[in-house]
């Protein structure tokens, strides 16, 4: 075991897989010589050469389209899109091509591409460096969508993603790259070194792309969340003085509804929290799926705490971000209802 940040864990996942499988290659803007703007690929080009860690032109559609072609020709590309906010020029390649290749060829072709991309706010990035577009991708049939909340899961899930026969869009919440963040920007930043999930094996292991994780067991209500907000939810539950069961969805598509439904049917109360906008957000799907599975067990309406339905405003980052107080207010509302 080693202590790793999320950046190091993600790098380690690619390192392990490149070592293990010569077909795994990495491509993206600034990923090679420079090692990536967030350093996730630092050292990989020196170790594996510039033919396997490839600097790309600034063309997200080109990166994803070329990755599809490489995958069709037998490679296992791990493409980095520098910010999730920059992924849209590649969206046609994801939706119309990547997601459907196996289906439309009756299983004759496939394109197991992994797309890694940093997402989320909290770094003063304004509307073009803060978005959480995961819900747009879970809406597309044929791609798996993942968002880890800690280094251990990040490495295990990324290895599973690279090994997956299906394309995976892998969102990395950049605010927690270097430490867990409980939603209070005025507190000194924490590091992963004191966190149990900062303990990461240096070798190969996987976390399956099919299982949600019960982060904290509890009985008052179930909080269903993922990414940065997992850490916010823990602090918010403490603030609200409740014994919450917190579930980290981890893999958004396909969704592990069984783990979630079992919990919600037991607690009878459910809060969903994510950083992305609310309307048609991933929380809406969670709400519907949980309602279908747990309706007769629910003692209160399912509550959602999310980013507001506006672009991410630079000056009001912490008014926009669904922090502890907003999540705690949501918890109280769920607890007081019914």
């Amino acid at each position, binding site marked *: 075991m080693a202590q790793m940040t999320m950046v190091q864990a993600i790098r380690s996942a690619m390192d392990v897989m490149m070592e293990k499988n*010569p*077909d795994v*290659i990495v491509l993206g*803007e*600034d990923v090679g*010589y*420079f090692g990536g*703007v967030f350093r996730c690929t630092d050292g990989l080009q020196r170790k594996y*050469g*510039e*033919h*396997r860690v*490839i*600097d*790309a*032109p*600034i*063309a*997200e*559609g*080109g990166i994803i389209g070329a990755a599809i072609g490489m995958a069709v020709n037998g*490679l296992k590309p791990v493409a980095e899109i520098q910010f999730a*906010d*920059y992924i*849209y*020029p590649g969206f046609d390649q994801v939706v119309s091509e990547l997601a459907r290749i196996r289906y439309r060829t009756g299983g004759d072709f496939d394109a197991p591409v992994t797309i890694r991309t940093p997402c989320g706010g909290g770094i*003063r*990035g*304004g*509307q*073009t*460096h803060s978005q959480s577009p995961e819900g747009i991708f879970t809406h597309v049939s044929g791609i798996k969508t993942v968002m880890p909340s800690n280094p251990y899961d990040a490495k295990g899930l990324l290895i599973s993603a690279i090994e997956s026969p299906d394309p995976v869009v892998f969102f990395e919440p950049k605010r927690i790259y270097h430490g867990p963040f409980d939603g209070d920007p005025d507190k000194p930043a924490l590091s992963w070194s004191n966190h149990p999930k900062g303990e990461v094996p240096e070798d190969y292991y996987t976390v399956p792309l099919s299982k949600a994780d019960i982060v904290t067991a509890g009985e008052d209500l179930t909080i269903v969340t993922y990414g940065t907000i997992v850490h916010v939810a823990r602090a918010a539950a403490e603030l609200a003085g409740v014994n919450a069961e917190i579930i980290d969805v981890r893999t958004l598509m396909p969704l592990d509804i069984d783990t979630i439904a079992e919990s919600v049917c037991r607690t009878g109360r459910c809060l969903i929290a994510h950083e992305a906008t*609310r*309307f048609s957000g991933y929380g809406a799907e969670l709400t519907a799926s949980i309602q279908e599975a747990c309706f007769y067990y629910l003692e209160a309406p399912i509550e959602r705490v999310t980013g*507001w*339905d*506006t*672009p991410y*405003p*630079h*000056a*009001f980052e912490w*008014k*926009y971000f669904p922090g502890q*107080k*907003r999540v705690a*207010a949501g918890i109280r509302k769920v607890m007081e209802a019914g």
Partner: protein
Amino acid sequence: MTKKSRLHIPHPAARPGEEPDFSYLQLEPAGAHARPPIDARTRELDELSTGLIRVLDDEHKAVGPWDPDIDAAELQRALRWMLLTRVFDERMWQAQRQGRISFYVQSLGEEAVSIGQGMALRPGDMCFPSYRSQALFLYRGTKLVDLMSQCLSNTRDMCKGRQMPIMYHSRDGNIFSVSGNLATQYPHAVGWAMAAAIKGEDHVATSWLGDGSTAEADFHHALTFAAVYQAPVILNVVNNQWAISTFQGFAGGERRPFAARGLGLGIPGIRVDGNDVLAVYAVTLWAAERARRGGGPTLIEHVTYRGGAHSTSDDPSKYRPKDEWAAFPLGDPIDRLKDHLIAIGHWSEDKHQALRDELKEEVSAAWKVAQTYGTMTEGPWLDPSEMFDDVFAETPPHLEAQRRQLLELEEED
């Protein structure tokens, strides 16, 4: 991959620790090219896209048929704008390093592009800027205090706190909103120019992007539309050699100049010394007149060098030689204009220093004023409930509900 890879990987001429080498640039002396008539047929203009238009020669004299013959007073004003931009950039860079603003992008070494082009365009011509076009905002009348206030996201911020620093716009100055995404402005410029043509106006649209951004699909969309409709637009590629850590070869600049990108579509290209403000002015005037007379689009490549980091978020010494800019054969655009003015007897080193001192004071004074409208740590503050405005022209009920929710949370504090 058991066999040896045959993939071509572009390599920059020099990485950290190596000697800078610009032998790939293909330079030509000032005055080497004729200035074709405005209505020349496109196929007669091919050499402009592979050559290099320069006016200022090695003795700092303006020579050749592209010399725009600008009077000395006007050139002194150009120098002032360029120097103001540099001093402003220096101050804002420092402000970011002091934690006063969250992010910054300077235009160090590229000031001649915005100023030379600003001078050549008419006020009614519309600009679709990149994030390194700050000099254009200054030239077109945006006050220092307003640019600074935008960077501070304060109560005077033109973007009402909604954008990262440097994402300016100027409705009165006819400059569209800077986007954080790359190349998106290029098709906008073409569409604006198409509208001008539809409306029968003689305005011209212009846009800018970097060498790296030419890889984006929007660059190619823009060129196609511009060519198909012969839109009155000037499309500029500011080739500053570097896109964060990747050199211009990663945008396909290894074999043919960016100016030649439009030739296959019949768009004339001009490759110009981007650090020669006279040459930039001259080619822009030529392209603008051609567009105004129905001659369609022109693609201009400005050969320049990104003198600083890409932004406050990267350290260029990690991916290119530290002294590379000093070795750049086209020099520093401000020094070159200064030396020209001295050579023709209309400037001196003393005057230059005095101007620099004066501009520093002007910038410092503006910075003090800007901060009175609020900083990241001190009020006055923008009203957070206004973040729900302008998502739609009329705020729909679900956003009004969210606004009320925010206000209730604020009251609890």
